[in-house]
């Protein structure tokens, strides 16, 4: 088995601040994802990466940057934190398999609070 570790678990920042969330996986999976979870709205894809140094925008990429410098890690930066983006950010990984069939494995999340 493997694990996805997200740090920090809780992140508090000031409005306008640049904030970075980190994710590490030891599954040796190719693909990694960042999702934003807002209460009652399901999960929305921010960025994903199918291999080291690859980045693909999701539906919610505006206001965020991502970085995949190693296969095992994927970082997300909130470029200018806003109060309306307080949410839980979930990192996930999967094997790059037959398109659409991948099982995602999730971390336990980073809860972002903006003051």
């Amino acid at each position: 088995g493997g694990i996805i570790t997200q740090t920090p678990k809780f992140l508090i920042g000031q409005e306008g601040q640049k904030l970075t969330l980190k994710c590490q996986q030891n599954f040796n999976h190719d693909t990694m994802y960042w999702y934003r979870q807002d209460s009652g709205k399901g999960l929305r894809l921010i960025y994903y990466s199918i291999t080291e140094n690859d980045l693909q925008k999701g539906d919610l990429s505006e206001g965020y940057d991502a970085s995949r410098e190693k296969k095992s890690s994927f970082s997300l930066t909130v470029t200018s934190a806003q109060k309306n983006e307080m949410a839980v950010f979930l990192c996930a990984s999967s094997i790059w398999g037959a398109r659409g069939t991948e099982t995602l494995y999730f971390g336990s999340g980073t809860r972002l609070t903006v003051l």
Partner: protein
Amino acid sequence: AQSVTQPDARVTVSEGASLQLRCKYSSSVTPYLFWYVQYPRQGLQLLLKYYSGDPVVQGVNGFEAEFSKSNSSFHLRKASVHWSDSAVYFCAVNAGAKLTFGGGTRLTVRP
């Protein structure tokens, strides 16, 4: 375009009762279908998935789901719930481009 609707935001049942959580999808092709569960303060975990074949698929912990092409549905069922099943359940679909999640159903099981 694809979309997923979970019409019940919250469901409360008594321990030992049967359960059905509803999921309706919209897609131009038959998608791959998933149910994930999120226990408190944890990430999501896969319960079960459907690609093709028998429309009833079995998952972990006694859960099953039934695919209906005519109704565009993928409802989750359990014959007898336990208090430990209290969690948020997400239906998700993938028609080949990306995974789209429903808004989730929060299940509370009363002892």
